């Protein structure tokens, strides 16, 4: 019996050690990419990225096996429901004084989330332009590679995929799809319960709000400036008037909103709605390919253009494995990874690479892709609208929640 108290202390000590086990952060030498690659060998990268789409998960599993065989990097896809969760964690760690043992090494990010981290100095860098593959995006010709919702990236985030808001519909059920936000309301009036949009603050839902506001706002310029510099009420008044009229005509009369792109697609697949939209221009084509959506699905872009953006990956200030994170990011920019990403079996998304910068061989792969009649035409995709200033996103989301989240 006299021995037992010692055992108890031992247990406490062991527990304490277990709970503190960690590896201290690395400090890569940014002047030498080879040194970074060497340092990255054998590291683990916790990549926080949306995990609700099988395609994304499958793509990242492939990336993981590639970086494992090339660099012995162990890539762990931390599936999150929303980038905000990872941002929240980084901020919390900063507040707790955790400067070296961050739980997040790399995160998929853009827009207001990026601006939140950048403004608080919570991102590591600049490092992006050191990547050998960065040249392939031809940032001088494509300024959106260095700009995120009007905010400059300052080398703190590296491009990964392109997105554009594309609408898709079932041509059996809907003969002439509405070509503008206003037309959508007119059409929904005649055909209730055929349309819905994801619930803000889901990314796609908030984007719908921005898209609508871009069309409905009387003057567009305030949207490209910080929201505090404008009279929020008067700028957004037309939007709320519009939504007040639209909601009763939505699926479930606006008493329930889908949670995101996948659920919207599901509703489409079940023929609950006949019009939907997504950030992935190839959503419809991919849906048809795997049997979810009917062969009669078609995509298009609104007449006046739809929001288009680039999404990036960034490294938090306290990441434990910065070198490996940079190597992974560089790999994501490689022709091989981007090509695989355009493959409908995987991400099925649009590349950020500038095709002219690629070798003839690599170019061939991108041009081979024919996604069938369901994909939007290049003409469609050329009608792009710029993302508003990121501060508008949060403001719109909060206002929406105040107005519509209770009945």
């Amino acid at each position, binding site marked *: *019996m006299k021995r*037992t108290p010692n*055992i*108890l202390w031992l247990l406490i000590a062991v*527990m304490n050690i*277990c*709970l*503190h086990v*960690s590896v201290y952060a690395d400090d890569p030498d940014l002047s030498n990419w080879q040194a970074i690659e060497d340092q990255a060998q054998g590291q683990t990268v*916790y990549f*926080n990225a*949306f*995990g*609700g*789409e*099988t395609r994304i998960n499958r793509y990242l*599993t492939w990336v993981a096996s590639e970086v494992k065989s090339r660099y012995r990097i162990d890539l762990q896809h*931390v599936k*999150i*429901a*929303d980038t905000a*969760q990872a941002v*929240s*964690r980084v*901020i*919390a*760690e900063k*507040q*707790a*004084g*955790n400067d070296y*043992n961050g*739980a997040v090494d790399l995160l998929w990010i853009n827009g207001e*989330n990026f601006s*939140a981290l950048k403004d608080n100095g919570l991102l590591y860098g600049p490092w992006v332009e050191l990547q050998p593959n960065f040249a392939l995006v031809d940032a001088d010709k494509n300024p959106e590679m260095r700009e995120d919702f009007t905010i400059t990236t300052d080398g703190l985030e590296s491009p990964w995929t392109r997105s554009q808001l594309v609408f898709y519909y079932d041509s059996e059920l809907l003969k002439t799809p509405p070509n503008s936000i206003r037309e959508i309301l007119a059409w929904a009036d005649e055909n209730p*319960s055929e349309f819905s949009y994801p*619930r803000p603050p889901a990314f796609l839902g908030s984007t719908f709000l921005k898209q609508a506001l871009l069309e409905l706002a009387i003057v567009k310029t305030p949207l490209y400036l910080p929201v505090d510099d404008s009279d929020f009420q008067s700028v957004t008044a037309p939007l709320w008037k519009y939504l007040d009229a639209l909601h009763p005509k939505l*699926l*479930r*009369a606006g*008493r*329930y*909103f889908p*949670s*995101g792109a*996948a*659920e919207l697609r*599901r509703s489409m697949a*079940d*023929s*609950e709605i006949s019009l939907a939209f997504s950030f992935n221009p190839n959503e419809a084509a991919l849906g048809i390919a795997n*049997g*979810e959506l*009917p062969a009669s699905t078609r995509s298009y872009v609104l007449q006046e253009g739809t929001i288009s953006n680039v999404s990036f990956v960034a490294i938090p200030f306290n990441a434990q494995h910065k070198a490996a994170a940079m190597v992974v990011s560089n790999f994501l920019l490689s022709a091989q990874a981007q090509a695989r990403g355009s493959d409908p079996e995987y991400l099925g998304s649009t590349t950020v690479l500038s095709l002219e910068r690629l070798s003839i061989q690599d170019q061939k792969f991108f041009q081979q892709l024919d996604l069938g009649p369901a994909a939007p035409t290049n003409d469609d995709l050329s009608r792009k609208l710029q993302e508003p200033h990121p501060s508008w996103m949060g403001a719109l989301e909060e206002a929406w*929640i*105040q107005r*519509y*989240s*209770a*009945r």
Partner: protein
Amino acid sequence: MLRWASLTFVLLLAVPVLLGTAISILPAFGYLPALGGNQLSLAPWLDLISVPGLTHSLSISLIAGIVTPLISLIFVFLFLASASGSKLDNWIRRLVSPLLSLPHAAAAFGLAFLIAPSGLLSRWISPGISGWERPPDLLIVNDTWGLSLLLGLIVKEIPFLLLMSLAALGQVNPAERVSMARSLGYSPTISWLKTVAPGLYPLIRLPLFAIIVFSSATVDVALILGPNLPPTLSVMILNWFNDPDLSYRFLAAAAALLQLAVSLSAIGIWIVLEKFTAYLWHRWLNAGNRSSGEILLYTIGRFGMPLVLLITAASLVALSINSFSGVWRFPASIPSSWTVQHWANAIPELLIPLTNTLFISLIATASAIVLVLSTLEYEHQQGKKSTMAIWLLYLPLLIPQVVFLFGLVVLSELLQWQANLALVIFGHLLFVLPYVFLSLSGAYRHLDPRWIQVASTLGASRSKSFFKIRIPLLLAPCLTAIALGMAISISLFLPTQLLGAGRITTITTEAIAMSSGGSRNQIAVWAIVQLLLPMLGFVAALYIPRILWRSRTGMKEIQ
């Protein structure tokens, strides 16, 4: 040695829960230095009041907290009252444990797939009976008043309550009481209700309180089935806690306290209902009715439980079909093509979460069983029942998870504990302990004391008696307790999510992550994996003793 084990047991239950709750209190009043909150203030409460739809959220939580146990209680009691020892009854009793092992999330998914406008039921009656060519625009799942939520909760809580009741039934001599009443002319169901129910109810009071708290504060089931605009309070708390704008944490803390208040109020209302019902029951008892209402009560009892089982079975069917379906357009009753692609896709993704899930549940349950056995054995050797109040045991079940886990997470961030398996296992242990204890203590304490007495008189030391007599005789209850513990651990969502910082993935966390975006088919695959695991545990618990004791007929009676 044993004394330290039971001390650890007590500390393990009480300290984290109380500490976690305490830590949640201060930020609720504006005090959290790490976030710049240096003064107590009521600001978080003012913010809370101005949240739109708060009253609605509170009402849903409160209603769920009361209606779920109420209906579960009615169904369970009427089932027991009308049970006649038939084959069906025995079947149901055997199914209870495996049914219990159905994780909340999987059950909720299955139910959603079953009753949604584009779900299985709807497809089966379309277009033939319903005339629907496209799914009807009905808000069923995620409905505003939380009816789907209630259904999902009830379907899960009934097996739990039944299990607890069956365990307690042995202490009230139901057979004798009922025969006595019947000999006085009372019809069977009424006899049970008048003579056994009043004795049984106090024994299942605490499990009922646990149900109240869970129903009023669940996050995972509410995410899947509960209303969205606005969501239940518990979902709001989770969202605020995860918000990148950290000032929302004050709001989350205040809401967590509010959640605690709601759950406790639900318990309070329940107690009032108890008193009222007791009064009515007395009058009913004294009125001396022998048979009025017998038919109605009997019917509900007879058909209620099978109905619940049917719903559960149908949910499982819905999940299975979805996991193998290829193209399946509405309103086809079955998929037009079948595929194993979903399973093939899932398998590489499954490996890590599966390993984690098994590892965590094994370690947590093994620790739990060692602690529980030590405590029970210590209690036995001291010769008196533990003075540890049974309330302490139930503490992790009586305080909403979202309340004290929040505090634990804040604590671990402050102490810079790495989110790792050790912390998650510890979190799981907190919840596994009460269930393992409850499951095992009845059998342990009621083991005929003469067995150990005989062993002692034959010269067996205490540990020889324990390992060679007690454990073999209690093998079946031990295995069931282990299976139950593992099932509980497998189904946990919030502890893994919060304490693991999202880095520790289990089958359940992945399934719920999928639910916000994945295809129905993928979700179905994950849900099935999620429910197969505990089922295997229960099958093992059922068959291992049978195989081991196949030439020992005496062991069948012990079970």
